């Protein structure tokens, strides 16, 4: 509850300051594109854009394809180009597929920012990400290792087999397991299955996992859709398997309270949207170019520095990962 209060207070503070100053984003229109419509995670992201819009005075539109496909996103981006937006903030379903259409937008003078899931370096001006992939991957691994007491079999239930974010995180998890670290010596990693970000598919795959590995101790679910499905399956089966992963608090409250998950994680998508809109406005105004080493003032989030990402482009890390436990989950239920 404290966190919410703090958030509200800072917000009011910023708002009151902003009320006197001339708003920086007046007259700017931003097109926000997310991965898929009807996804609560992106609803939270849009809330971040709304907050920033109140502070900066810009206007924004948001949309995501019905089926979570890249060509659907291309369609939406082209519509935004036709409408003449000033900046695009895109959470890409595929980093490579959107490059051409993004470059077309940039030729038309539109600034392109990717948030949450990147567009490849040659197609964007800036990428805004919650934390580096390594941090995200290893945090989840450490959490599950703690939950199961340092030994036993673990598995991963991922999203689509083609999901770039998830695959990157999993590769870092596997790397950590193979690094020969003492912590992971008694952990046996049995493999990854893919739930396709579909509830039933995740459910069935988990069922098969549980039957195939009677000694399974822990499951990592690095996707918000899979989390509740995996937990529900374990609950129905009555097995003592611990879960961790990236999940929404509202989805997981039931299962965290039931003790199936000790701790799950998620960055705050509201902050992600918030930071993206600050970066977008600054880029459009021209007082910020998104070059590596530059710093940008992101309202209540303070000053953030642009670093070089592993694909050679520039990237902005928030480096904040919230954890939901029995004690903290209630405070987050209404937000995420």
């Amino acid at each position, binding site marked *: 509850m404290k966190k919410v209060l703090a958030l509200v207070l800072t917000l009011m503070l910023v708002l009151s300051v902003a009320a006197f100053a001339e708003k920086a984003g007046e007259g700017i229109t931003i097109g926000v594109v997310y991965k898929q419509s009807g996804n609560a995670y992106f609803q939270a992201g849009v809330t971040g854009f709304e907050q920033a819009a109140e502070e900066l005075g810009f206007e924004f539109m948001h949309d995501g394809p019905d*089926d979570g*496909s890249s*060509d659907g996103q*291309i369609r939406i981006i082209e*519509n935004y180009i036709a409408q*003449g937006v000033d900046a695009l903030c895109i959470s890409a379903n595929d980093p*490579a597929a959107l*490059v051409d259409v993004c470059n077309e937008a940039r030729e038309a003078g539109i600034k392109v920012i990717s948030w949450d899931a990147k567009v490849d370096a040659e197609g964007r001006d800036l990428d805004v990400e919650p934390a580096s992939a390594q941090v995200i991957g290893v945090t989840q691994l450490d959490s599950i290792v703690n939950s199961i007491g340092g030994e036993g079999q673990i598995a991963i239930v991922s999203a*689509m087999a083609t999901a770039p974010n998830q695959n990157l995180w999993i590769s870092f998890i596997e790397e950590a397991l193979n690094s020969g670290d003492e912590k992971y010596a008694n952990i046996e990693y049995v493999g990854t299955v893919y739930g396709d970000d579909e509830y039933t598919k995740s459910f069935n795959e988990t069922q098969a996992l549980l039957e195939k590995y009677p000694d399974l101790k822990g499951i990592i679910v690095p996707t918000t859709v899979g989390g509740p499905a995996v937990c529900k399956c374990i609950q129905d089966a009555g097995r003592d398997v611990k879960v961790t992963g990236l999940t929404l608090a509202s989805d997981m409250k039931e299962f965290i309270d039931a003790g199936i998950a000790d701790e799950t994680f998620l960055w705050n998508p509201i902050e992600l949207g918030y930071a993206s809109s600050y970066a977008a406005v600054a880029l459009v105004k021209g007082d910020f170019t998104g070059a590596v080493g530059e710093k940008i003032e992101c309202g209540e989030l303070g000053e953030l520095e642009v670093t070089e990402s592993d694909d050679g482009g520039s990237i902005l890390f928030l480096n904040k990962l919230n954890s939901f436990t029995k004690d903290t989950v209630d405070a987050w239920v209404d937000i995420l």
Partner: protein
Amino acid sequence: MQKVKSFLKSWEFFLIILLAVMCLVFKITDASRIAAGVQKKPIFYFANVLKSMRPYFLYSFMTLGMMLILAMGDIDISVGAIGTLSVVTLGVTYNRVANGAENGSPAALIIALLACLLVGSLCGALNGFLVTRFKELFPMIITLATQLFFRGFSYLLIGGETLTFKDPTFKSLSNLNQLLKIGGLQVPISIPIYLVLAVFFYFWLHRTGNGRKIFAIGTNAAATYYSGVRVDRIKFWCFVIAGFMSAVTGIFFVGNSSSSVKADIMDGYHMYAIAAAVLGGFSTDGGKGSVIGATISLVIFGVVKFGLGTLFGFPDSAVNLSVGVILILSVLVPNLVEDIQNHRKVARRRAETAKLNAAAGSAR
């Protein structure tokens, strides 16, 4: 005079009216939004709309293939999956043949494109073979199974990764996504190519005996068979052509998605193709429809999706809703009109007979 009259009664004319009305509505909305200050510059004008038709003409080639299938009274829901498999073949073959050459190799691209088209045709051939040999089964069921098969096979080939190509040769496929400059207008390259193909299909389907046989099969397959037409053979080749067209769509799709290849693309494209063909006058019962109608309906869907998305701020999911409504109405309205006409005819005849009877009665 007779010709003009029959044109005015035709489905194509109705589609043109529909398109015109829609354009008018969008144009007025555009102007009023500018007047109200909601939007800074006009969105809905010819050049802008034409430019924005690009994503909606991607599946136009698939629609041409689907037309053939629907005209025969069959249906093929595996076309999207065929496109995926052919595109994946394109990527994999290119990687193998070019062997990582620095600037890529044009020969490899040609071989890969041929392989892509070949695989598309072969997939179509498999469908055609099964449909003609197992007549007890509805084509929908067969193509449902082959769809899963093709899609799964694509996954087997490249798994979950995205194949990206950085070399300029393969990148040249992106040219398929470019805008041609014709007389100050920016025209998506797929439109002229589609028009050429559509003209070819028009003459084939509506002007040659061979093409008319396809419609004859749809009207009454048994009668057509007994009049000496080799029904199975024509069916088989139509499925092959549909597969080929899916592969063509796939190549354009690669151009559209920045020359990258993935195993989960073009899911649901069969529905777009079916929707466009049905609005164009084709029916799953077979035997009717025209290339011109299908072409106009492609434009209609493009304009509706563009207009609702940009001017009315409809989210992507609600745009599908409008597709659903248009589809139902496009079949329901003509049926109702026909019903009313029949009713009137019956009523008139009844009135006439009643009058005659009355006259006869009074004469007696």
